[in-house]
């Protein structure tokens, strides 16, 4: 049993929170029907979230973090994932540019355990630092595995700070190399061990002791917890742990598992968003990250946490995938023969990225002396009223809405998820940009539609393993699940 920590960081806690899920959801019942002939055990209830072809752990983590840095920059930006694309190029550094944060903000990536985001959060709180911890996950899975239907793609982020409405009241951590599942270079798909073994050991050796210790540090009994966000290694783990702890609090991570799937490193933080959206002032909320041990954080809620309700709302929005084969294609489980046009390969140049990459991924345009904004910037402004070279003032377009001027659904151009929607969009500040469009509405995009910007993969060179990122236009609102 870990020693209780008796000196929680005074009034330092979670200042705001964000969550992001991709639009698409797979209906598990429908998918399991496709595999019924195999006799393989499959989850059959709820839905899982499915990333678009141009979303990855980074793009989703940036989306989750966007609301957290609208007003000022944090001291540090931490990226957490077990499915990051780059292994020697910091995702946090790319995210920094995508979020247009100053280069003086410290960055680091954390990986190799589903628990890394809560560990990073705890470190930030104990260090009393103003940090953004953003976790994104898009884990590869194999058809036929329970994980393919149980996992989901998504992201969650938190910002720490003083005077926060969710104060760290107590915490405990436990390292325990319980191999409930693993991935490795040789085995990129998650390899699970028997559920009963995992549940029994996780409850008895990890969760119960660490939660008891955290509650003791906070000066409360587990029964006083009003809500929990416990990342379960397997289903019904919390039920068993709660019984042992004498705690009746609902685990909000179960709703995330049910409606979006297991979000890996982002799971506990996403569940925390739901818990903080539901709880009352004065209540205690438990956050537990699980993986190679556990971190348990007891939070005392002193007020509404910005972003919690948006995170909860995101869970209810989405569009159910019509076909299982499209899911298999989106997840890379089947490789369709897209023909010769798909052989297109573009090599990104590091020199170009160094020169203009930060403006591109930050979607930074320029404002001329008349006030007109353009993208990209240029020495001679595009504004016909100006004929001399000017230095344009930086203007970020990523957080602005725009209007579709012209659009088509291109079926000739190769796209891994056709059709390829693109067209001209007009920002209210004057900027006009030819853009790809994503999250196609049922009736397609139309001239005059209002759109918002989403970070996506712009190009990927699979042979060289490189990706570039840019912004794409998406509808302002998403359908509510069940209505789509």
């Amino acid at each position, binding site marked *: 049993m870990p020693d209780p920590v008796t000196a929680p960081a005074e009034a330092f806690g979670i200042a705001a929170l964000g969550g992001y899920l991709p639009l698409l959801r797979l209906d598990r019942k429908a998918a399991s029907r496709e595999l019924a002939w195999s006799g393989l055990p499959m989850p059959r209830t709820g839905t899982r979230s499915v990333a678009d072809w141009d979303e990855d752990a980074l793009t989703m983590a940036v989306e989750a973090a966007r609301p957290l840095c609208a007003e000022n920059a944090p001291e540090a930006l931490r990226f957490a994932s077990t499915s990051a694309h780059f292994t020697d190029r910091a995702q946090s550094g790319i995210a920094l540019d995508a979020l247009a944060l100053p280069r003086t903000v410290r960055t680091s990536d954390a990986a190799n355990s589903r628990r890394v985001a809560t560990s990073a959060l705890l470190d930030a709180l104990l260090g009393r630092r103003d940090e953004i911890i953003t976790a994104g996950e898009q884990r590869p899975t194999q058809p036929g595995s329970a994980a393919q239907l149980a996992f989901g793609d998504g992201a969650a982020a938190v910002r720490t700070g003083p005077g926060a409405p969710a104060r760290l009241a107590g915490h405990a951590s436990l390292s325990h190399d319980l191999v409930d599942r693993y991935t490795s270079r040789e085995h990129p798909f998650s390899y699970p061990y028997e559920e009963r073994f995992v549940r029994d050991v996780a409850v008895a050796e990890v969760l119960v002791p660490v939660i008891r210790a955290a509650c003791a540090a906070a000066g409360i009994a587990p029964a006083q917890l009003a809500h929990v966000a416990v990342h379960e290694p397997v289903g019904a783990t919390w039920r068993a742990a709660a019984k042992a702890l004498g705690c009746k609090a609902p685990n909000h991570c179960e709703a995330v598992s049910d409606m979006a799937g297991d979000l890996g490193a982002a799971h506990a933080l996403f569940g925390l968003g739901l818990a903080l959206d539901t709880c009352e002032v004065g209540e205690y909320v438990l956050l537990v990250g699980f993986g190679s041990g556990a971190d348990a954080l007891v939070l005392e809620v002193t007020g509404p946490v910005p972003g919690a309700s948006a995170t909860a709302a995101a869970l209810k929005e989405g569009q159910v995938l019509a076909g299982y084969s499209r899911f298999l294609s989106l997840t890379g489980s089947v490789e369709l023969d897209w023909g*010769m046009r798909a052989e297109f390969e*573009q090599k990104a140049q590091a020199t170009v990225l160094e020169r203009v990459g930060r403006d591109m991924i930050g979607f930074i345009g320029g404002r001329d002396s008349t006030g007109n904004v353009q993208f990209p910037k240029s020495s001679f402004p595009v504004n016909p009223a100006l004929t001399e070279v000017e230095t344009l003032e930086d203007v970020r377009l990523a957080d602005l809405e725009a209007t579709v001027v012209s659009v088509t659904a*291109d079926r*000739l151009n190769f796209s891994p998820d056709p*059709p390829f929607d*693109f067209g*001209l969009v007009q920002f209210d500040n004057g900027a*006009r*940009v030819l853009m790809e469009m994503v999250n196609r509405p049922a009736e397609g995009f139309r001239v005059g539609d209002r759109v918002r910007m989403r970070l996506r993969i712009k190009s990927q060179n699979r042979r060289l393993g490189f990706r570039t990122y840019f*912004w794409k236009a998406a509808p302002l609102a998403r359908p509510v699940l069940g209505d789509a």
Partner: protein
Amino acid sequence: MATGIRDKVAIVGMGCTRFGERWDVGADGLMVDAFTEALADAGIERARIEAAWVGNALDDINVGNSALPAAHALRLDKVPVTRVENMCATGTEALRGAAYAVASGAVDVALAIGVEKLKDTGYGGLPLRTKGMQNDLWMPYGSAPGTFAQLAGAYAARHGIAAADLKRAMAHVSWKSHQNGALSPKAHLRGAVDMEKILGAPLIADPLGLFDCCGVSDGAAAAIVTTPEIARALGKADPVTIKAIQLSASNGWEMQFGAWDGASVPNTRAAAARAYAEAGIRDPRAELDMTEVHDCFSITELVIMEDLGLSDEGRAPSDILDGRYDAGGAIPCQLDGGLKCFGHPVGASGLRMAYEVYTQLQGRAGERQRSKVDLGLTHNLGGSPFNSVAAVAILGRLN
């Protein structure tokens, strides 16, 4: 004050290969065919060619960059050859270079030749760029039909026209070109197609269907230009002359600045206005007898009719459906089938358009011959509606 090149340059010979899926021949062979036909037509020795402009838009597709592929193929010995490239307006750009050389007095005889060998890519549509420069970090990799399809939605929005009505007018554009292409021996697509088939074709880029898109072809076309005086000395009593060639290029305004609604191509309007002035044309609807325009897609031709001032704003669909631009109409468009059916080997297309006007002006168009042709216009458009190079040329006779 510049006076332009009206009647300062005569076309004394032209050649054009059969366009299409030319599995039988490479770019060099295509150039040879167009060149030898032009030489024979001009009735001159090849040694009289003092300079050449070769137009080729997609240098990495079996032609190669620089002067050398043309100089080698045609064995142009120590001739100053210049390769030009201006996307789909490349063919007219080559003609412009040769014409300006003659008009300036720098040379007496010049060659313009355009060539493209697209069907060695192994797939339909145009090839994609792969260089990974700044634009590739943000600009969508849209296809050509994808960029031009956007004219349709914007046009419908500007004029309040129902999508189905616009689609029918677009289908008529394609129907008409297929009718004409059937009479064009060198055309890529020579079969007539009915309206129902056009309207029911699979979508390529909303709302463009398969038959709204031009053929992607191999081919070459060439022109030999000289002074009117030399043309007469060669026995051309009433030679075809260039009345105007004008070009207009986007500076990024349409794509980056908010004043354009996407329903027209401003560069076509600018190039046409300058060409009409250079040619002394005051009323193009009354004075032009035919046009060969850049109908890469049906909606492009529809919009061009307004951009050239041949239809009133918002009236192109009804003019098209009324047959105004059909072979028997007031101002026939694409008598040879156009890009749609004659085909579109990019670097050759502008010269192919000139080839049809040149042929019609001389009364040599056979079944396609229009009874009266004194002035014909070619319009060649490179890029996309929002980032374009437009070229307008007007040809007539000297007398």
